């Protein structure tokens, strides 16, 4: 089959590789119909995730048609259209039973920091991802959600990661009604976090980024106020001042380890690799949010450590909440939001490419060219 493969930092290509096969009775093989490039795929592309092997196929956001079934699969049938959560979760372990499917114990031998994830290095279990013609999907009766008849694949695609992740980002902000919310990062996850904050009753939502076209997009798409941090002297003071000198009630980090904004952090984390990326946004969240406020982290950070002001967080009495999204539990609720027009998930797609042009799509997305917000790839057969 044709698949995107990693060739080393900043280099991917599309090449032939063997089709995936059933390796467990609860597996299915999916014929991929749509697959997206995620902001977190850029951390892989840039060589920042340990144990990213040459030849690895990325892609943890995809929809597909069931092609082949393992002997123990009973809920899915050949030809079913599904969208798949990025977490590979068994449904029966200590964590899955409690709804924490991102912490599943039964899918990743390589580390305890995460469960198995499609196409996200061997640190998350060594599964090839969905930026290919076919993909192996374990625990197929547990994770995948059937796409309702009459709904396009692209409308459901983002239920696999970024929509639940953005929603959970707002949810962990513990909005009770009327709160002021600052979302750092106007990328896809940030956009969905902003929409979700409104759905939860936020009183005021502000987007912070340094890419102007993305702020403009956020203003239109999520009906938020925007701040370009390159255009203010000191983003922390600016935001505190905006909220009576105290700062907002809730800050959401939808950026993660490759943040702009601090040369020191970039040299330490991205240049010298003395910490896992640049936790600039996390630092801003802690400094900006009001005392007793809530910081929610959905941006991705790697092991083993980062320089962040935990003393400030302690002294300010902050609540820090964070998690990889437990995607499966959000899917039915958010599917409903999409169907009832509250969230136009498909509306963030700015670029579509055939799978063969994936390297170009990666470049465009990474360089933030041509107004790119979200790229969707289509395999040749779809």
């Amino acid at each position, binding site marked *: 089959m044709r698949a995107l493969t990693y*060739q*080393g*930092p900043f280099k991917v290509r599309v090449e032939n590789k063997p089709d995936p096969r059933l*390796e*467990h009775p*609860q597996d299915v093989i999916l014929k991929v119909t749509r697959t997206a490039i995620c902001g977190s795929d850029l951390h892989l592309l840039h060589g920042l995730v*340990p*144990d990213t*092997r*040459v*030849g*690895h196929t990325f892609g943890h956001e995809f929809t597909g048609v069931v092609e082949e079934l393992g002997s*123990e699969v009973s*809920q899915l049938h050949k030809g079913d259209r599904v969208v798949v959560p990025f977490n*590979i*979760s*068994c*449904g*029966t372990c*200590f964590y*899955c*039973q*409690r*709804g*924490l*499917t991102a912490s599943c114990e*039964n899918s990743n*031998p*390589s*580390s*305890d*920091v995460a469960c*198995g994830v499609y196409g996200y290095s*061997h640190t998350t*279990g*060594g599964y090839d991802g969905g930026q290919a013609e076919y993909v192996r999907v374990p*625990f197929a*009766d*547990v994770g995948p959600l059937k796409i309702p008849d009459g709904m396009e694949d692209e409308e459901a695609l983002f239920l696999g990661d970024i929509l639940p992740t953005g929603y959970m980002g707002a*949810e*962990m902000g*513990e909005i*009770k009604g009327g709160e002021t919310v600052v979302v750092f990062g106007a990328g896809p996850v940030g956009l969905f976090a902003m929409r*979700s904050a*409104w*759905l939860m*009753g936020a009183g005021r*939502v502000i987007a912070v980024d340094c890419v102007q076209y993305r702020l403009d997009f956020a203003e239109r798409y*999520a*009906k*938020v106020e925007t701040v370009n941090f390159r255009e203010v002297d000191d983003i922390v003071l600016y935001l505190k001042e905006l909220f009576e000198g105290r700062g907002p009630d809730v800050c959401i980090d939808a950026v993660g380890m490759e943040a702009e904004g601090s040369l020191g952090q970039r040299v330490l984390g991205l240049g010298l690799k003395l910490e896992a990326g640049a936790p600039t946004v996390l630092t801003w969240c802690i400094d900006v949010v009001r005392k007793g406020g809530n910081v929610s982290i959905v941006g991705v950070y*790697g*092991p*083993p450590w980062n320089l962040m002001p935990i003393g400030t967080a302690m002294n300010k009495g902050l609540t820090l909440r964070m998690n990889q999204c*437990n995607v*499966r*539990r*959000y899917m039915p*609720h958010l599917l409903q939001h999409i169907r009832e027009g*509250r969230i136009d998930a498909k509306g963030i797609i700015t670029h579509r490419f055939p799978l063969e042009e994936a390297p170009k799509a990666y470049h465009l997305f990474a360089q933030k060219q041509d107004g790119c917000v979200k790229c969707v790839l289509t395999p040749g057969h779809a």
Partner: protein
Amino acid sequence: MPDRPIPDAAVDLEPSSRPGVPMERTPQPMPGARVPIRVQHSDVRVFKHKGRAGFPPVFGTAQPPHGVSGLLRKVAYGYPDHLARHWMILLLADRVDVWEHRLARVGPWAVPTVGVLALTGLAWRKWSRA
């Protein structure tokens, strides 16, 4: 700021309407889940980090370890994942992996080319001295 910035604003105001509240549910198997989970078999080498008691029943088998990078990864997985050396050795192995693939790609023509050039050079030196 508009009062109703988007349609149905505050529709999820009630925390119990949010799928992730409370964070931990009363334990119960998820719909479609099946026990016991049969243990996956693998023909290729798959590493488990030292801090984990047993192998999980399901895992990925993509890109089995090979060469010098494979040896480095084996060393890395000998340490549990709360130790920085586990991650640092993996990052090193990733770079070695890239070089191994580059060498494997240029090897078939680069090795003979270098050999021929070296022999020609030797012959030239010998001939010019004579």
